[in-house]
């Protein structure tokens, strides 16, 4: 995590630690496969060759990375000021919903207007949905963890209503889905790959967040608020405004993920079109310590694994969900270990520079107090 002032050596150690944890997860998964009478070596070779072994595989990994990176950004940004956004899934759906509304309503627009329109609407849709929990939190009414979680279900059902109801395509009688969008509303795809314009949106999001957090006053304010909200309030930082803005932008990014899936990959709105990108994004951001560079790396790993899951299903007859086990194992090691690295750091007396330093030191102290129990 970027919370510690670290030299290059400690940073290297940290990276090695991450790699060791991922390696350990892979070993445990291999043992598990052996237990179920499968060939783990074959499985790993299949995953690697299908994803990174061909140009098609690589482009598909990139396609999967787009929504993952965007959804992780939707978590990362609020996390920087101490907000927990578990609602990426719902924001993704609402972004897709509003973009779909635009695409169906203004289907006569030329492409030069259509594409910016759906992107903008997608951003606004996700952003407004994220604004609800932000307002509830800012008013002190309801914690955002619960509200974002609950709003996910509401959003999915809301989209379901429109797809099964007013927007249902009468031509495809057996499938609940909207009519295909006109070409002017479709995000362009590159060559004969499925990589789409969303790639640039995702890259822009990561780069902008990185720059803003690192080099701007606004980023500095966010770190201050995340570190100690009360102190920041007394220093006159606009906490409520920052909270609302950060959640809006975060939700908007998740909404863009929805736009990418619906306007480029699917070409129409279907119910349950996301296989949990919002939740995986949450885990990615958490794994990466809410760090933009880490988010990209972890998204890559997750994209390889999820695409590899499809392969295992075909070549090994394993259920697709098998790869979920690897994902979970990696997460277990990281959530279990990262914290211990931190508390060790506290006891070695590293200087903590920002973000919850006081709390962590207090936490470490309590731990040593409690140990006899």
């Amino acid at each position, binding site marked *: 995590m970027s919370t510690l002032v670290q030299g290059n050596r400690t940073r290297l150690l940290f990276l090695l630690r991450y790699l060791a944890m991922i390696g350990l997860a892979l070993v445990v998964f291999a043992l*598990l496969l052996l237990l*179920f009478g499968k060939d783990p070596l074959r499985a790993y070779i299949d995953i690697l060759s299908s994803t990174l072994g061909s140009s098609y595989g690589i482009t598909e990994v990139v396609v999967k990375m787009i929504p993952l990176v965007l959804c992780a950004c939707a978590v990362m940004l609020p*996390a920087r000021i*101490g907000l*927990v956004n*578990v609602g990426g899934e719902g924001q993704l759906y609402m972004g897709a919903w509003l973009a779909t509304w635009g695409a169906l309503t203004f289907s006569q627009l030329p492409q030069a207007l259509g594409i910016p329109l759906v992107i903008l609407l997608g951003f606004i849709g996700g952003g407004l949905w994220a604004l609800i929990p932000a307002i*509830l939190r800012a008013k002190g*009414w*309801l*914690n955002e*963890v*619960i*509200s974002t*979680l*609950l*709003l996910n*279900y*509401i959003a999915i*059902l*809301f989209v*379901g*209503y429109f797809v*099964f*109801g007013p927007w249902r395509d009468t031509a495809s009688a057996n499938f609940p889905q909207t009519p295909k969008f006109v070409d002017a509303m479709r995000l362009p795809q590159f060559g004969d790959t499925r990589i789409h314009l969303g790639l640039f949106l995702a890259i822009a999001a990561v780069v902008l967040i990185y720059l803003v957090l690192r080099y701007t006053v606004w980023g500095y304010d966010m770190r201050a608020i*995340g*570190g100690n909200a009360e102190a920041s309030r007394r220093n006159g930082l606009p906490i409520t405004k920052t909270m609302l803005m950060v959640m809006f932008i975060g939700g908007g990014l998740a909404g863009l993920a929805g736009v990418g899936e619906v306007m480029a990959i699917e070409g129409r709105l279907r119910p349950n079109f996301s296989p949990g990108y919002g*939740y995986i994004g*949450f*885990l990615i951001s*958490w*794994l990466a310590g809410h760090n933009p560079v880490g988010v990209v790396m972890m998204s890559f790993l997750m994209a390889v694994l999820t695409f590899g899951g499809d392969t295992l299903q075909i070549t090994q007859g*394993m*259920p*697709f*969900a*098998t*790869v*979920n*086990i*690897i*994902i*979970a*194992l990696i*997460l*277990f090691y990281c*959530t*279990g*270990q990262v*914290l*211990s690295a931190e*508390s060790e750091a506290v006891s070695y007396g590293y200087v903590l520079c920002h*973000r*919850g330093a006081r*709390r962590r030191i207090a*936490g470490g102290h*309590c*731990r040593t107090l*409690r140990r006899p*129990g």
Partner: protein
Amino acid sequence: MLVGALQAGTAVLYAALGEVIVERAGVINLGLEGTMLMGASVGFAVTYQTGNPWLGLIAAALAGALFNLVLAFLVVTRGANQLASGLALGFLGIGLSALIGRPYVGQLIEGLRNVPLPILADIPFVGEVLFQHDVLIYAVIPLAFFLQWVLFSTRWGLSIRTVGEDKTVAYAAGLRTQWLQYQALFVGGLLAGLGGAHLSLAFTGVWGEQMTSGRGFIAVALVIFAAWNPLRAVLGAFLFGGALAFQLQLQARGAPVSPFFLDMIPYLLTLGVLIFLRGNRKFAMPAGLKTVFEGMR
């Protein structure tokens, strides 16, 4: 319709009752979906192999309990973040249960049979609705009363609640906080495993990948709706289950109300309850949970 509400609500209710205990101890398990799936798959596998649904139920409960101990190790012993660990646990459960259940996809078993209670079942209407079910359905209401009694009238319940309110105080009072949280997660896993098994052994009689289809998350929402109270959870579960059964009725009659909006009602109600009853001490969240939500910076 009432029968439908009972049957649809039971699996969720078992999981929710377990989660009440877990959350009262200051831990939130967002991976409840995974725990239920473990119960459903292991219960089905054991029943299929032995032909005995009772063994299946026991295995399902144990599988759920052991599975929850993974979370216990992470969040209690290692102090890992509860939300991330819970979500990861859910992923593990989805994957593991898919792997376990793979050989049994499409198989049929003789699951839990409905046991009409003598005499009572013959009462017209009431008998049909209330007294012609499987054992798990009969057991769930007494179980809720039992848990209510355990939580609020026994020393163990008091200890659990103390740990959930303030770990430091609990420790100072001489309670073994970590051990108690392990116990809570174990009990919660037992019940969630049973809930999952009710789906595969009684409600459907088949195993399907991710057959819980979000019921674990519904259970988490339900616990919040019930304000961490077993009896209110019963009420909520039948409200959730009732919404499902009600919409089938409406559809059958061609009523112009969309089922999707009916499905939303429980979630909207939960939000409403949380917002409007936030000052009410009777509905207050265990303080330890609050720090889980607010402590993640």
